[in-house]
């Protein structure tokens, strides 16, 4: 179902943002990272956020994920006003609803793959078994390996398993292939694609690589803190067909 169809059927957006701005003050310089961003993300959307460095993609993702607060504007998740939550409530929001994947995997080196995932399943309300999550990203053979014993692509897939093990409604991926070569990157994207298909998680994928945006339902192009273009991909390309 396309976004337009979801809208037409009267499905409420899972995530709604209106006029988000973000101003950083570094010393005497003001940086306008976001200049009034509004968007709706519908359940089971796979959206690519495309744009050059410094266009505000990560800032937007951090605000949507409850890692950062907007200077003005509002955002709602399932009807709940996220932009006004305090630190404690934001922690609960991340804990219960949001999964993150970063460019640098940020695994805990002292925990095995399976334990890194269990880190999340232990505190989430409705998690899947940690090993199932790892199976979803094709790492059932590497459960008891420590991060130092895994390749970059494998580490990133552990990070994805960790993000989705709680069965989040929202999966936010910030340049998940940024540190990987294209072949390994494809494996990681396939994992994201498979999870999106099997779990129906609303997924936002940040990339500055236009090729990767082809695997999304919808592409939001950012520039200078604003969404400068929004388009629907008439046909999603399979991750395994992507080359860059």
């Amino acid at each position, binding site marked *: 179902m396309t976004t337009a169809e979801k809208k037409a059927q009267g499905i409420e957006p899972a995530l709604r943002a209106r006029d988000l701005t973000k101003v950083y003050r570094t010393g005497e310089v003001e940086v306008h990272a976001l200049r009034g961003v509004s968007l709706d993300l519908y359940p089971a959307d796979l959206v690519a956020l495309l744009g050059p460095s410094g266009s505000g993609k*990560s800032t937007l993702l951090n605000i949507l994920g409850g890692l950062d607060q907007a200077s003005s504007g509002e955002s709602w998740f399932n009807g709940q006003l996220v932009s006004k939550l305090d630190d404690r409530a934001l922690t*609960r929001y991340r804990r219960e609803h949001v999964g993150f994947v970063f460019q640098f995997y*940020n*695994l805990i080196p002292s*925990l095995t793959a399976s334990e890194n995932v269990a880190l999340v399943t232990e*505190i*989430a309300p409705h998690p899947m078994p940690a090993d199932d999550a790892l199976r979803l990203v094709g790492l059932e053979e590497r459960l008891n390996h420590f991060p*130092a014993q895994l390749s970059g692509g494998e580490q990133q897939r552990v990070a994805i398993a960790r993000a989705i093990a709680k069965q989040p409604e929202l999966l936010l991926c910030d340049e998940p292939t940024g540190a990987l070569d294209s072949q390994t990157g494809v494996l990681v994207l396939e994992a994201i694609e498979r999870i999106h298909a099997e779990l129906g998680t609303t997924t936002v994928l940040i990339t500055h690589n236009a090729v990767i945006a082809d695997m999304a339902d919808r592409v939001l192009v950012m520039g200078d803190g604003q969404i400068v273009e929004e388009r629907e991909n008439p046909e999603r390309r399979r991750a395994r067909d992507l080359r860059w």
Partner: protein
Amino acid sequence: MSPLNRKLTRDLWKMRGQVIAVAAVIASGVAVLSMSLSTTEALSETAHAYYERYRFAHIFGRVQRAPEHLADRIRLLPGVQAVTTRVVKTAILDIADFSEPVIGQFASIPERGEPELNLLALRAGRLPQAGRPDEAVLSEPFAEAHGLVPGDRLRAILNGHWRELEVVGLALSPEYVYTIGPGALMPDDRRFGVIWMGREALQGAFDLDGAFNDFSVGLLRGMDPEPVIRQIDELLANYGGTGAYERANQLSNWFLMNEIRQLKTMSSILPVLFLAVAAFLTNMVLGRLITVERAEIGLLKAFGYSNFEIGLHYVKLTVAIACIGIVLGWIAGYWFGLANTRVYAEFYRFPFLLYEPGPNAFMLAAGASMIAALLGTISTVQAVAALPPGEAMRPPSPTMFRRSGLSKLALFQALDQPTRILLRQLGRWPLRSLVTSGGIGMAIGVLIISFQWLDAINRMIDVYFLQAQHNDVTVGFGEVRPASAELALAGMTGVITTEPMRAVATKIRFGSREERKLIQGVPARQNLHHVFDVDGHAVDLPPGGLVISTILGELLDAGTGDILTVEVLEGRRPTRQVPIVAMFETYIGSPAYMEIAALNRLMGEAPAINTVHLRTDPLYRAALFRKLKEIPAVSSLNLKEAAVTTFRDTMAESMLIFISFFVVFAGTLAFGVTYNAGRITLSERGRELATLRVLGFTRAEISYILLGEIGALTLVALPLGCAIGYSLALLISGAFKTELFRVPFAILPDTYGLSILIVVGATAVSAFVVRQRLEHLDLIAVLKTRE
């Protein structure tokens, strides 16, 4: 300023918390060392100057009664520069508003002009005038203890006659820096005081007209006192001379020198501990700094900076931190030293105080801590040199962890992930963990050895006073009395039982060793004043030989079965061969005992005594004291209860200041170690903790990982610290062995508990401070950068 130096100043500022923590530990070491050294220096310089200015004699001695003209014969001996003869006697005093007996030591001073030796430092009023036999000068601490000032009056029994004396002045004397009464262990200014009166007045009072019973001799510079002492002893043998002795054996000086020696021991052991910890902390901080600065180091190398230049940069950092510590330590050491010296000056009465610490103490402390800090830098500089520029520019790969056998245990499987993180971190760097625990343990150890002093004192009191002595009053006679004198006392109202003692002044020789010693004659089986071994049993005296303390055995290098030569210095002055029949261990003094009948036989005299121990009924005690004071033969009265109180107070007073310093220092130590460990963990693991926050962990949950590590290290430190304290206490109780005291090795459970409590408190404070930093953990910045 070169860019590297600018980086240095900014690094120092950036790490100010850790810099201060390390500097504080260095400062502690410098402060303790410079305090101990400057106090020792001040005490010894003050004593030296006091002795010099007030012409403290080199040789001292007593006789029964010698005609005045003998003074001129002594003066003619080669090497003698000056001679002062005096009348010195003890007597009972009666002081208004103080019911207990007070003993006065009366010493004569010339009515005209000043004495050649042992000058008085007049503190108030004036000296007695000729023709006014009732004028007296009191020792200042004694007058202060009783609130007496010039113009006041007091009563004394001089040779059996009540005399009313007028206080005309207050003074101090180099002879009585440490004022200790007969039979006492500690100065007690309320119960013992020195009173100076005109020579003619005292000669009249004690029937010594034209004679003296005490003398002091000053020697020409550099003279050996031994030959002079021998000649004086020959000269005075027929006048009841009990043997001249040199300054080193003069009671007050002996105590003072003992104290200075103890201080020196203290300054050689404890600061070493602090400096060792400072070196370790410097190493820890710098080591982690390098890990954090890998990229910068690689960059500098890529630009062409040499290993030497970069190494020097980190050495400079250490030097800067050490300098901050040294300056702080100097300031603290100066003030502590001054405060400490003042306490000593209060205790040992000096008319002036020379606290002008030379640069030596401070330079030594600075040098030692600088070396310690630089030692802590060596491995860091080596690590910098070993870092290849290319390698340094790449992010380090994730730390290698392995599943240990422990991980497979069911117990481990039951643990949650944060606990696993915590345990694996500790297990990954066991040495580092152990060293951190060691640092915290060191703080506990320092506290244990500080508080252990109080345990030791209590143990000494328990054994020496409470277990061994069942008498409550000890009566001393000025002269030897027939054994019947005991019966007279036993018949007095309020006396429950009595036990006689006779003390005889002797010289004991074995091989080339010689000791002046009072041999105490006591019943074979004592019921009041026991010859008591530290093991807790009374020693019965076998007939016909000496029972000596092990410390005396060491001084003489003699053991059980050896035959000693005993030269008696009173009565008929016989010299006899006496075997050692038993030895026993004591904490206080170096006594020698003999069965009283055997001692009297050795003297060739009829049964005689000069001391009686009494057990009295508290109900009648006040009346008994009043009566005892009236007995002319009684020259001293000692109360056990007062002795215990004085002993405890004196020890506590001189120890308390040290103990409180050490509590502060140990707190600093514990804080410094845990604060640094916490900050370093935070900087190394900030990324991990931020990741957990992103994953939805609360601040409390990630605090558990950070503080749990500190907690676990502290937990390991507790038994470790107790073991360190135990070993150090053992070391110190061995090091503080003097002729006067052997510090017992005794640590009560309370001491362990209190030490642990203080360190846990300091650790909790530092953990709290580190925890505050979690509030400012920047989630986004941490995640956007690579490691």
